[in-house]
């Protein structure tokens, strides 16, 4: 595999990670917190209605997790394709 092909593959994998992570980002915030909020509010966990919880707390925790998952994936991918910095 020559360098050009390798780089194209690296970029494609990066874009696939982005698609996965951004879908989750959209689902927990716009999906659970706004679009389906009424349906989720019929479920209660402790004192929280689930839709309201995602809107005011849950989505923020997921956002933090998404960034750290991304950092991990990319650090591994950088090493695999030897584009990491030393």
């Amino acid at each position: 595999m020559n360098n050009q092909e390798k780089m194209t593959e690296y970029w494609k994998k990066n874009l696939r990670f982005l698609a996965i992570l951004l879908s989750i980002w959209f689902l927990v915030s716009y999906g659970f917190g706004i679009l389906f909020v009424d349906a989720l509010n019929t479920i209660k966990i402790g004192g929280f209605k689930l839709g309201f919880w995602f809107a005011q707390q849950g989505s923020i925790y997921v956002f933090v997790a998404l960034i750290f998952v991304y950092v991990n994936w990319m650090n591994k991918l950088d090493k695999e394709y030897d584009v990491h910095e030393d």
Partner: protein
Amino acid sequence: MDIQIWTYIIVGITFALYIGIAIWSRAGSTKDFYVAGGGVSPLANGMATAADWMSAASFISMAGLISFMGYDGTVYLMGWTGGYVLLALLLAPYLRKFGKFTVPDFIGDRYYSNVARTVAVVCAIIVSFTYVAGQMRGVGVVFARFLEVPVNTGVYIGMAIVFFYAVLGGMKGITYTQVAQYCVLIFAYMVPAFFISIQLTGNVIPQLGFGSTMADGSGVYLLDKLDQLHTELGFAEYTSGSKSMIDVFAITFALMVGTAGLPHVIVRFFTVPKVRDARMSAGYALVFIAILYTTAPAIGAFARTNLINTVSDKEYASVPQWFSNWEKTGLIAFDDKNADGKIQYVADAEKNELTIDRDIMVLANPEIANLPNWVIALVAAGGLAAALSTAAGLLLVISTSLSHDLIKKQIKPNISEKEELIWARIGAAVAVCVAGYFGINPPGFVAAVVALAFGLAAASFFPAIILGIFDKRMNKEGAISGMVVGILLMLFYMIKYKLGGFGGGTAEDWWFGISPEGFGTVAMVVNLVVSFAVSRATAEPPADVQAIVEDIRFPKGAGAASDH
């Protein structure tokens, strides 16, 4: 000791700290001044970003706003945190690899055009000044309340402090000052929240107490109680809100994209040594921000419950001391319409007898909970830290736009480093004075426009940067026309529906039912469509620019790229 003395002591200590740091970390080169030498650790950068980002509005106003808006307050919570996911995944690593000093620098080089650079400079200055004017006013108001000086004197004190560390230290001074300011502000925010959470629910963690049962032994969940109180008084249910779904969607999106497009946040990712540090520091920044942003809705719900329980249908003569304290400032007002001596607090404006300024919710919290005086002084220091750190970050964007993007890149390309540094300091000094002027003579539109700075950032920068990284075919014609159309459309909508220009208009005339706060979403989409269409109808960008786009997609070699 009384509140006044505690306030002088705590505010004095924090200010001495900030000035000490500014002297210790003063800038010696333009690289120090613009990007703190490029050697900030990701953890310190995360803290600095969090302080830079969380303004007086986040610290003082947000929890209060949420307590009155209930579910609708979600737009701020998700909008101002979700943008960091976009920053970390779509912008930070690539901009760091690109390795220049400012956002207009990226746009000017990527779109091989000084016209694009100038459009970006103008957008950066419009966004930063609308935002900084509100911050300086905030500094003045906090000083006025806690040091009992006139608001204008408060603004002068704030100007002097910011002047000192922004002009002397540049980005380097600001970065390390912001680290200290983050520590002060988060401590000041959390202490009262812990106390109130214990008092109301018996749970020390506010994020959990928020969903627990009341500590009064009734076994009722706090949020259920709040919904019930709201319904009884005629308000919309606390956990359901009253805005339309499309508007909540649009505002949240505009705030997220705007956050990712704000120049003073983006430049923070130029200050770390490596691409992987840029990714990581966005993660740290969001952790530090999330500590405050997940506490805010809890404080909102606690404050709302406390407020209704304390005042609703109570004898005016028997209200607690904090109520009368704040009445003196005019931020709480009681008007006994039916002359029965009781406070009727209801949704119906005809019968409602109580007006409350939303900003007092965080500031009055320690008094409401009967906390010691030093806690009240701490909250004052926290509010000042929040306002000063954001003001300094914005001033730096304005100053570097002038010295680097206008003078060095366009007017006097042969300028020496020493001269450029002098210009950067002059730029910072001028920006402090202009910001101070707006703080003292606030134009009526400032409050209305601050929230819209996000819409402006979303409508102008975000698409140009994203397309610059992800679309190799994007050329200068596309990016320039997109930015110009986007920002003009946003300005038009804002002036028409917020400031009453172009014949004005009411909520019924909003396009697609979207408020001016959410319109950045529409303007951003228009920008994307225009950029795309124009770029495909005009020539491809030159080969060397396409090579740059290829290059920024891989982390290797970032260190070299930043030395130029």
